[in-house]
């Protein structure tokens, strides 16, 4: 293979105040190739990509882009050199239009004047949007776009800057199956145009399917490297974890009881959910499958009293819940782990301790003045840290912002577990969480169910639902389309039910 290498690393190293995060990383990405970069959270993937994208500078080693030494002093310099980094958290301005976002740093001007050439902006944006397969007007405000559409706009922006190397960091975490397929098709087209890509993902099946070459990072070093067909799912996981995980899902011993804890009858809210009925039993893990926008999260929000509903009934432990607030619902034993960990699950700047005790704070106080009982408080925190197997490296007083995604999610879970909920709604609990931490979260979910809690598990990963649930509900366009007991679990069947019925198409 003599094609000029789009990107070459040799002997890259990076430390943060004496702690090595990258050691001797060498790899190549030929033009038109897609490199899969996998590794657990904290393995050094993001640091490595930040080096390429000019956000950080290496301590040692060299990068070459298309044969030329690449040492960007800033992210702008890297972009100029043809590197586009599409982040996990998207970097678009929601208040600006698609066109404004794309040309923000390089608006075409009218002649030599500072006046923006609107018609050219419009035309070029339209062309770019067609290229990425997005049927939207260039002046649509970005805040009206779904996450998947935002991702495509980011790629359009990369194309507008004539990127030769596109880095995609966990692009599918918040995409539904349909949007993911659109993205993958676009990646195939980009590949044909000779654009090199680095694809970072925890979804190993996607990595294996999409990429030409693979690099596995562990503790900042390359532990596996080669053409994609040399790897299997199992081998990748054992390389990433450093030990072999024989199974991805823990053993489930107990089976749910028959006693219902949560009953939903004919729940409806115009344009959101339509006539939803189901029963959640004690100790049951009830999965909710569906595409993005199927109304799963919306259903969860209604159940937790965040959004109104027009008709229907929600019954918990035999008592009908009227229109009540989250505070009252928590008092009745309901817990809700939202899909948006950073904005709704955590106080990022607050300490681990304060986050863990937030929900059940009242139990940590002493009468008569409801002052905190620090002994009881510390004990509760220690118990919860053990229960969720939170990393021992982090101090109680450390802000949760400094934790990895998996550990942050464990903090959110710990916060809810401390309140001893009898019904848990988990919305995408393993999003952005690495393989090792995922397994631990699964174990925790099983332990909870074994102790008699009813669990409503919303997930976009079908594997996860198949591996964990006792029963799966499938939603599509706000309707319940299937209710499958474990014996009838079938990937095909779930996908069939999840796809919207054709009627002019969405």
């Amino acid at each position, binding site marked *: 293979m003599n094609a000029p290498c789009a990107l070459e690393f040799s002997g890259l190293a990076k430390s943060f*105040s004496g*702690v090595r995060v990258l050691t001797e990383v060498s790899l190549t990405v030929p033009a038109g190739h897609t490199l899969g970069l996998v590794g657990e959270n904290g393995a050094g993937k993001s640091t490595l990509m930040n080096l390429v994208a000019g956000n950080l500078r290496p301590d040692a080693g060299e990068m070459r882009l298309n044969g030329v030494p690449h040492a960007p002093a800033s992210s702008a310099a890297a972009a100029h050199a043809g590197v586009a980094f599409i982040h996990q958290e998207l970097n678009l301005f929601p208040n600006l239009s698609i066109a404004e976002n794309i040309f923000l740093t390089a608006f075409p001007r009218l002649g030599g004047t500072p006046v923006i050439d609107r018609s050219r902006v419009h035309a070029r944006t339209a062309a770019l949007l067609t290229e990425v397969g997005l049927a939207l007007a260039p002046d649509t405000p970005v805040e009206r776009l779904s996450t998947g559409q935002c991702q495509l706009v980011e790629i359009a922006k990369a194309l507008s800057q004539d990127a030769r190397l596109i880095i995609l960091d966990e692009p599918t975490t918040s995409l539904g199956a349909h949007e993911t397929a659109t993205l993958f098709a676009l990646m195939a087209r980009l590949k044909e145009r000779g654009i090199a890509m680095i694809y970072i993902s925890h979804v190993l099946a996607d990595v294996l399917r999409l990429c030409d070459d693979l690099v596995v990072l562990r503790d900042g070093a390359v532990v596996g490297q080669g053409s994609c067909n040399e790897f299997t799912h199992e081998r990748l996981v054992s390389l990433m974890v450093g030990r072999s995980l024989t199974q991805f899902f823990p053993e489930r011993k107990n089976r749910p009881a028959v006693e219902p804890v949560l009953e939903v009858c004919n729940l409806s809210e115009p344009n959101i959910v339509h006539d939803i009925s189901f029963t959640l039993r004690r100790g049951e893990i009830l999965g909710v499958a569906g595409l993005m926008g199927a109304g799963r999260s919306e259903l969860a929000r209604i159940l937790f009293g965040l959004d109104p509903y027009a008709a229907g009934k929600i019954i918990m432990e035999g008592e009908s819940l009227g229109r009540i607030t989250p505070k009252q619902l928590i008092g009745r034993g309901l817990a809700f782990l939202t899909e948006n960990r950073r904005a709704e699950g955590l106080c990022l700047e607050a300490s681990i301790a304060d986050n863990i005790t937030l929900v059940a704070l009242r139990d940590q106080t002493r009468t008569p003045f409801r002052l905190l009982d620090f002994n009881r408080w510390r004990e509760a925190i220690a118990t919860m840290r053990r229960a969720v197997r939170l990393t021992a490296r982090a101090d109680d007083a450390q802000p949760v912002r400094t934790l990895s995604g998996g550990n942050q999610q464990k903090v959110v879970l710990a916060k809810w577990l401390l309140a001893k909920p009898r019904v848990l709604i988990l919305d995408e609990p393993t999003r952005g969480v690495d393989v090792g931490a995922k397994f631990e979260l699964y174990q925790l979910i099983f332990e909870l169910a074994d102790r008699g809690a009813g669990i409503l598990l919303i997930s976009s990963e079908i594997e996860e639902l198949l591996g964990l649930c006792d029963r799966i509900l499938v939603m599509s366009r706000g309707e319940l389309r299937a209710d499958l007991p474990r014996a009838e679990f079938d990937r095909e069947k779930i996908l069939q039910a999840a796809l919207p019925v054709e009627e002019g198409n969405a």
Partner: protein
Amino acid sequence: MADLSHAAAKSVTDRLTATLRRVALSEYLVLWLSVIYFLALAPFTPGLVSPENLVNLLVALLPLFLVALGQTFVLITGGIDLSVTSTIALSSVVGASIVNGNNGWLAGQWFAAPVAVLAMLALGAAVGALNGLAITRLRMPPFIVTLTGMMFFSGLAIWFTQSKNIGGLPVAFTRLGGNGWLAGAIALATGAFAHLMLTRSLFGRWLFATGHNARTAYLSGVPVRGVTLAAYVICGFCAALAAVLYTGQAETGSPVLGQRVLLDVIGATIIGGTSLFGGKGKVLWTLCGVLFLKLVDNSLNLLNLSIFTITMVKGGVILFAALLDATRHRLAGSRP
């Protein structure tokens, strides 16, 4: 050899940088700054170290501390209360018109002073409640609500007194602020109570959670609206309590009392380390901030500078402190 001495020099600089870094990152940086400022100015400033001046300084900072204390609660929620100065003015004139010996509503009655104090406190809490309700129920931005509140209530205070000061206040009332020991005891007790509330109570924890992330707090069962409302009520109450002290010190009820302290209140709180973005704040920080600001005030006064110069220098000092804070954040952020 040369290498060795080089290495030694490097280790000394390293240690020095580490120490400087520790001081810069210390949460009581402002206290150190106050001490340095005091020591640096003492030789040039006549009377700065005299016992009378120090007592004056301490007594003068008490009411400001009380206002800043209330402001701390509001800032922790991520809000701001600009109406505190008008609350001070309004409470002052209402209290004075109840208690004054000339034509007061309760002139000469034995219970006039306690009733006046209670009325002032209730008024302060009521103004705070109005602010809080507008912010939590009508979802209006705190800045606008309290800015317009400030305009309305200071206007009301002037209208109420026809722009006159109210004198002839009985000693039973004025000594609350005039007597340094009494004023000190009031401020100390309030400060201690507030400290306990912030660090040990359920309410305090809820307050911080609300400031950190109101959405997360709400979803975790924190009564966000109630907590926010309470913060404004506490702020109004503290401003009224400060009005009792200010009025006592001035021995007159004045509709323009405290008009100039708004910058001091917010400046002192922020200098102390409380964040304008919410989620951060301590009673002791605020005390240090107030101490620093009052020290600057006092020393510039002793240097016989004009009020304009003092204001200019104070603005510079607040800006400098803000700059230090920004640097501090950068330092803290650069830690991996």
